[in-house]
């Protein structure tokens, strides 16, 4: 019986991230539109978009291979599993031990690998440009992300996400230089990884400035729906990761009573909505970068996180 409850809690988390992901996108779009003095689409528009795409016929190029057809499902599955492994409303769920923070970063890399291959499958210039740039961004962002993971792991003494969140939520970690640096780096990385301004523009219609969108340019119908859903999930994942690493307050830890879970859930949704409001405010305040300025931006994140790790090697108290 206990196992069934555990299983239900894990399933609830999987469904929660899946359900909330398009809403996050809806909030960011709405806030952004309001900031630009537009009315903007309703909050639930991403759900409608997904539904519409799913019911549309998928158009494939004549020379599209099985990789092109399988990649959207694979990317979606990888992102979903990764998102489900991040503690949202409670720690220590049933499968939280199966992959730690390093494995989570690597799982996202697996998804990106598949999508980059899919971008090159049909053999167009846009697909190639997208894949190439995506891998360039990833090759700078992923190591920085790993270093952020090292920072929190060194402070918490574990790489298990659940245990890290628990340590940060309950133990007296305090304000630390290393955590501050890691936070800054993480925000920059989250922006880059989710193809947001100033690295990429999710709403662009100018192909030469596209990265992520260029890579998936050929996709249509249900395949595109999967990719869009995966992108939304990835944003949700990064928000959840931010919430559980840097502001884990309210998350249900040892106490798994219904009240604690309800508090955890409310806190989680509150944090996520707040982040979804903050993101477009930041985006409207800055302009997109040129492609060859990315290394400066991402190199900054890399240097900040490397410095954080270095400080922790010097002393655990930093």
């Amino acid at each position: 019986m206990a196992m069934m409850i555990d299983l239900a809690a894990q399933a609830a988390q999987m469904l929660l991230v899946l359900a909330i992901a398009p809403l996050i996108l809806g909030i960011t779009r709405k806030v952004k539109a309001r900031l630009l003095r537009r009315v903007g689409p309703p909050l639930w528009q991403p759900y409608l978009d997904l539904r519409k795409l799913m019911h549309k016929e998928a158009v494939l190029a004549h020379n599209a291979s099985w990789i092109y057809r399988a990649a959207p499902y694979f990317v979606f599955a990888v992102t979903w599993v990764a998102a489900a492994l991040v503690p949202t409303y409670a720690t220590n769920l049933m499968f939280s031990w199966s992959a730690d923070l390093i494995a989570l970063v690597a799982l996202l890399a697996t998804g990106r690998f598949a999508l980059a291959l899919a971008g090159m499958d049909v053999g167009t210039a846009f697909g190639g440009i997208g894949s190439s740039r995506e891998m360039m961004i990833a090759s700078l962002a992923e190591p920085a992300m790993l270093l952020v993971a090292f920072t929190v792991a060194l402070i918490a003494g574990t790489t298990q996400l659940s245990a890290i969140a628990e340590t940060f939520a309950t133990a007296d970690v305090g304000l630390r230089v290393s955590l501050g640096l890691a936070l800054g780096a993480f925000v920059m990385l989250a922006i880059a990884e989710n193809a947001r301004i100033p690295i990429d523009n999710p709403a662009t219609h100018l192909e030469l400035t596209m990265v992520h969108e260029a890579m998936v340019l050929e996709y249509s119908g249900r395949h595109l729906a999967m990719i869009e859903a995966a992108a939304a999930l990835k944003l949700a994942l990064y928000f959840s990761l931010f919430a559980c690493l840097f502001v884990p307050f309210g998350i249900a830890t040892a106490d798994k009573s219904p009240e604690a879970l309800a508090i955890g859930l409310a806190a989680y949704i509150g944090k996520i909505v707040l982040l979804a409001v903050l993101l477009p405010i930041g985006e409207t305040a800055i302009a997109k970068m040129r492609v060859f300025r990315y290394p400066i931006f991402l190199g900054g994140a890399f240097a900040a996180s490397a410095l954080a790790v270095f400080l922790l090697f010097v002393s655990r108290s930093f």
Partner: protein
Amino acid sequence: MPALVALWCIAALLALAVAAIGAARTTVGSFLVYGGSLIASLLALAVGVITLIDGAPAEPMVLPVGLPGLGAHFRVDALSAFFLVVANLGGSAASLYGIGYGRHERTPLRVLPFFPAYLAGMNLVALADDAFSFLVAWEFMSLSSWALVMANHRAPENARAGYIYLVMASFGTLALLLAFGLLAGAGGDYAFAAMRTHHPEQTTGLIVLLLALLGAGSKAGLVPLHVWLPLAHPAAPSHVSALMSGVMTKIAVYGFIRIVFDLVGEPVWWSSMIVLALAGVTTVLGVLYALMQHDLKRLLAYHTVENIGIIFIGIGLAMAFRASNMNWAAALALTAALFHVLNHSIFKSLLFFGSGAVSNATGERNMEHLGGLIHRMPKTAVAFLIGCVAISALPPLNGFVSEWLTFQAILVSPQISQWGPRFLIPAVGALLALSAALAAACFVKAYGITFLGRPRTSAAETANETDGFSLAAMFVLAALCVILGVVPGAVVELISPVVQSLVGARMPAQSYLPWSSLIPIAESRSSYNGLTVLLFLASSGTVTALFIHRFATRATRRSAIWDCGYPNASPATQYTSSSFAMPIRRVFGTTVFDVREVVEMPRPGDTRAARYHVKVLDPAWRYGYGPVARCVLRTTTKLNRLQFLSIRSYLTLVFVTLILLLLMVAAWR
């Protein structure tokens, strides 16, 4: 007993090599030689696995061959057994692949006799228990592989590769010879058993370690000793390239581990920093150069340099931990290194097999002339894809597990007592993280340009799937990539006796864990479970696909490429290998590469096409070997005059030399 069986396998391989000289002219000959090699390697593989599982104490064996009156010593301890497994796993796969691939060989007499001899040489190195037989086996391995590199000696670049390989191999053996000379000490007892009992003092130990780093490092491909590797490995036939990259570099790692962890004793604490720094640089430079290559086999060879770096990071960490008495952490780091040894031998062989299949089917190794092979060679494409994912260290395959273990070892290193390694290790960790991400970019490029897109030449358009034996070899290795990634605990158990014997500790026992989790230190610290990750991925992917197909639509239409409304029929409009790597070349170009870009722009009115040349040089040539080679050339040109002297001058020279020597003797006394 295991040593005896393994030696019989080696004898069988050597006999095969001799028989191959006669059999090479017949068509069955190739089948028999490769089949025989397959059986012998499988037997030796079984010996290695049984020794590791059984854990029987190693018994030395003395054969009355080699130096008169002294004999040759052989022994199979846990370390030898593990490298027997690595060597013969690769060896048997290469033999199986060779049965099919060898049929296309134009000059079988140049390959067939040397192939079993090469396998025998690598096995002998792992078995040798004295310095003399070790060095003889080492040279035998080098020379037989040199013969294989020169198999297609008419190509000028192969001749150059063979020459450079020979020079570097001689240099490496010289370094090892000196290392063993120091280890043998004044008594000159050259058996490993004697070296184990009296370790040299610390300064001598340090010199031995540096010499071992030069000797084994040049064979393994540590930067800046790697320059021969991307030239020689691709020049050989593909199954030999697989052995050279996948196995021989690992035998070099064996040599290093044998000397540093077994024979030298406790080296000075800061010696680990030299290894770590070299390894970190090797890791990143290896993968960056790999990214710049257009030749598929050369890309793979450069990428071996990266993986050797990862292995040496593990070894360096183990040395640092051992120096500060953290044997449990040393066990973790060394397990990670050895796990990566096994993993790399598997997926690098697989990828070389794939590239061999591609070059056989198309006659091309240049990726810029390939493309779209997934349609023409669907099975090879699947196996190659698995290899690419595994080597990019992506879960849930095996490459990720060993890198993950290395990261875990890095994360416990703040507990090291010395400050030097503590400052260095975070930097090495950052380099390792960087290389992991770059490796993924590298293999997206390798796979995307070769197998995806539209065919760039007619050779790629008309390629045919490779033969059954080659496919069988590739799929066996691909299956191993998945299995080792999903049940890593079994491999850790297999490695544990090796680690126990070298650092006196081991990783926690993994066999009792549910769902075959992997736990490096303690459950509360970190755990990884490849099996659940795989099951999760498979189930959520399937559920999603079924859901979409059931509740949404399955309607699909085939149509022309959209490409934003302006499709161009020419395959030249696709992204190429160089354009794919261009952003990364720009990012690292000024600091790491020696890039020369030349734009030839015709003047206005001139109808000539504009041309754009990019040349990426390995700075090791420009700053390291180039000056040395020029210096040698200058000196020899000057000395050349000595060849054209009169008899009078020669006599004077002889006389002067004699006087000098006599003076030296007089001064010495």
